[in-house]
């Protein structure tokens, strides 16, 4: 399977660069053309939420942030691997904390839950060279839902 790799180094620009890439992929109807438009948006949302989490909360110590995004189309799914050189998060434990802390119409604390809801499968680990690695898939066949309390 073909892997498309992108690399980002500036936390101030990464979100704009990321969405610029998605717009380019959609315009060219190439990389993600095997997915329906809603699934592409769901995938884009999942990537955005994780990278936004890195931008807002990750500790890169004195290192220049280095984030890589691998996109691997796979039938009616797309697999994604995002690696970074931060200190990492207590994830996915943090998802349970966020879920339990959800209040009606929450203002914060939905990011990881949204990522969880948008993805079919995910795994967070540390690589042999100490990088943090999030891997997930988004499927055209999943009926994704985040249960937010409205009362």
């Amino acid at each position: 399977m073909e892997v498309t790799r992108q690399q980002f180094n500036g936390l101030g620009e990464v979100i704009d660069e990321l969405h610029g890439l998605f717009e380019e992929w959609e315009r060219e109807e190439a990389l993600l053309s095997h997915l329906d438009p809603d699934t592409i948006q769901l995938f884009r949302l999942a990537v955005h939420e994780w990278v936004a989490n890195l931008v807002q909360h990750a500790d890169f110590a004195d290192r220049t942030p280095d984030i890589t995004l691998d996109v691997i189309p796979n039938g009616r799914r797309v697999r994604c691997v995002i690696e970074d050189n931060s200190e990492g998060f207590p994830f996915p434990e943090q998802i349970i904390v966020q879920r339990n802390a959800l209040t009606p119409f929450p203002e914060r604390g939905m990011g990881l839950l949204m990522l969880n809801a948008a993805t079919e499968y995910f795994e967070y680990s540390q690589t042999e060279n100490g990088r943090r690695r999030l891997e997930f898939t988004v499927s055209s066949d999943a009926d994704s839902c985040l249960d937010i309390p409205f009362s």
Partner: protein
Amino acid sequence: MQATTMNFQIEPVTHDTVVIRIGKALDFRNAADFKAAAQEQVRSGIRSFILDFNDTGILDSTGLGSIFSLYRQVSPMSGQVVFASVSRPVQVVVQLTRTYKVFRQFPSVDAAREALR
């Protein structure tokens, strides 16, 4: 008269209703600006908000949270928040989070204006 407050165009509809043009993104980078702009409108007597998502490519969890915050503020005062001209990226978030149960949607800003007059 149209005003631009901290990157959001705000357009009066009636004495207590405005349209806010969300623009390209409502996310963690500008959600605080949106909240401040909306709060300023609430302080000046606005109770109903039409959010125009026509050009919006990004609505993330923090952006949605800022809309929830506005809803929590105006709903006890019989106010409302409605969505208009919802783009595909925003519709995906609406479907994922089931927020269509709370925020009425209109195909255009004009349709929302008519409904809220």
